[in-house]
């Protein structure tokens, strides 16, 4: 009896997560799959997948997310790494507490606040950036950051950069602090320059944390929602040439505006599959080589 109790005990403790996930995660996942394989009338069909697969707007939204993803990996993360190297430097001293907090704040700022503020920063008439550039005489005609399709992704990237470069540099910093200083010293004794030290010692040792950060960047890009919804007319417009159309926004509109439940569920699954493919590739690229 007592032995049995000891056996069950661990499962009792961990059961809350599994019970909750079964109800609120697994069940919807299965019912979503069923929805995606049904017509509105409830008959079995593959046509939803066919429709979504042939839908150029869906692929446009995926492309937007992919470009944003590349932007955040190749622009935001390097900037964050540089910032982390600085935070880790010997000049930092006692300022580190304040600076880390400052870096942390944007990440815990509500997306609606971000939307309200950045709309003012980016707008055409009397927008902050436009006014500043015009006052300095750099540009003459205001740039339409929010309607020009060329500027749509850079504008959103700017917001992403502001929101996430701080927290990412803190993640990098934690990785850097885990690297024993002796390694660097040893390298210097061997006559390796700063650059070589960074490339051959620091960077490889940052790989585990980098895997995590890049993973977050990928899923974050494909889950883009609030930033754009709050930026572009509360979601009623998705920019010229669908330049502000992201997968989850398209899914949301399909569900709540066009009311095509089955098609929206299908899109959910398609997004999940695309994400799975990308993150698998990422893990392959970041695998431990030895």
């Amino acid at each position: 009896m007592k032995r049995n109790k000891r056996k069950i005990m661990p499962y009792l403790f961990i059961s809350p997560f599994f019970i909750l996930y079964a109800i609120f995660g697994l069940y919807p996942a299965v019912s979503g799959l069923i929805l995606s394989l049904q017509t509105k009338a409830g008959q079995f069909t593959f046509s939803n997948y066919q429709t979504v697969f042939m839908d150029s707007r869906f692929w446009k939204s995926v492309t937007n997310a992919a470009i944003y993803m590349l932007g955040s990996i190749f622009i935001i993360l390097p900037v964050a790494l540089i910032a982390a190297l600085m935070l880790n430097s010997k000049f930092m001293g006692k300022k580190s507490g304040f600076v880390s907090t400052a870096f942390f704040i944007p990440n815990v700022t509500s997306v609606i606040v971000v939307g309200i503020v950045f709309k003012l920063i980016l707008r055409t008439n009397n927008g902050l950036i436009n006014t500043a550039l015009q006052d300095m005489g750099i540009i003459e005609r205001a740039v339409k950051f929010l309607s020009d399709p060329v500027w749509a992704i850079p504008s959103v990237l700017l917001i992403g950069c502001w929101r996430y470069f701080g927290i990412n540099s803190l993640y990098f910093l934690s990785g850097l602090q885990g690297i024993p200083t002796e390694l660097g010293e040893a390298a210097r004794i061997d006559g390796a320059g700063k650059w070589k030290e960074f490339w051959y010692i620091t960077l490889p040792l940052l790989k585990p944390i980098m895997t995590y950060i890049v993973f977050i960047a990928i899923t974050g890009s494909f889950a883009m929602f609030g930033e754009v919804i709050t930026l572009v007319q509360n979601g009623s417009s998705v920019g010229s040439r669908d330049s502000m159309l992201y997968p989850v926004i398209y899914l949301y509109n399909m569900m709540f505006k066009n009311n095509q439940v089955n098609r929206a569920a299908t899109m959910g699954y398609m997004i999940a599959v695309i994400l799975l493919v990308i993150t698998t590739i990422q893990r392959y690229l970041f695998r431990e080589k030895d």
Partner: protein
Amino acid sequence: MKKMAMFLGTAMLMTTILTGCGGTSEETDNGGKENQADTGTGGDTETVTDTNSDDIVIWAFAEPHAEYFRWVTEEYKKEHPDVNFTIEIMTTDALSERLAVINASGGEGAPDLVDQEQGFFSRFMSEEQMCYYPLDEFMERDDVTDKMVKNRLDLYAYDGHYYGLEHALCPVTMAYRKDLFEEYNIEIPTTWEEYKAAAEEFAKHDIYISATKDMSMGGELDEIVLLLRAAGLDYVDENGKLNITDEFKNIVMDYVQMQQNGMMYAWETQDEAWPVVAEDKVATYFTADWAAGWLRDNVPEQSGKWQMAPLPKLTDTASVVSVRGGTGLCMTKYTDKDKEELWDFMKFAQLDKDNCVKKYEMIALYPPVYDAMPECNSPVEYYDNQNLGELYESLADEIPVQYQADWRNAFTESFNSNAYDLVEGNISIDELTDILTEAVNEYNESK
């Protein structure tokens, strides 16, 4: 020390939850939205306490309609003490989205009455999506068509049935700066050609003829369609089909050019316009009754300088008044209440003369109800004591019809997506026409 702070923080959270949020955890347990009791106070807004399923649930979006409902339901309760109301307010988008979803899944949780914005009504215009109950039998019995401007009822008509009772007449006329026109000796334009000429004249003095939404942002095409509608050339024709006329193309291009040449101030969000208006740089403004107060609210210092005139005519036969916007009170087909009782309230709120007058005083919606109109006609101080009501009443029967079409959303989406290219000259208006036509056709096929 820090651990202490951490612990205090956690303890603080705990206690707040235990003391302040009894209501929330209760709600968490009970779940259902019908049986939750609101805790705390709602400030200025009425707090709904003791909601139960016998209440008539009204979904409304934003002020000012909600303000009117709060008042009129109280009035109604004085006569019918046994009737209770719950007014749920949400954004315009949210309202239509929730309703569509509820409708798609069998009507569970549907409200009894909905304040339906006309632009979103088109979303419900199909057999599958129509979640409203046709009001024809009630309207026939109570002679509503004689009491209310018929064109305003047509806005909520689909497949030969009427579904909503309109709040407001929504006449659009032209507000103009009398002093500016006098100062520069420019005639008040009565035709579109004269309007464009006036724009050029004002531009010489660094004054914008009007402030309108930046075309490259897309949008509902509201400003542009006003004159087309007055001329009977709206892009939705009487059969609910897409009809892009040459007039449509010309007027769109006129707007694009005026904005690009700096003759018309182009804004991305409305509020950018007011400082420009405040600097005496805007000469005219097409406005509906419900927006006539915007000038008063945003540039109060220009009181007495503005006047209201009929619209410039796009064609010789065009009407001098147009129509913009509107909201209809609709009854959902899912209601479990007595429909007679609901209709009685709808009549009380939308057709009763005294209530209509009160609504005009309260939120400046000019009634579409004939016998209430004379009561609303009094001088308006802001417009130099001009009698706006009289002007509206005199134009009431000239108010054009606005036809509805279920494809309006698809049209707008396509327009939004291509407006920037049109403005930048990447595509011509004819190419845009083709794209719009294709989008609408595609929508019609997908049905």
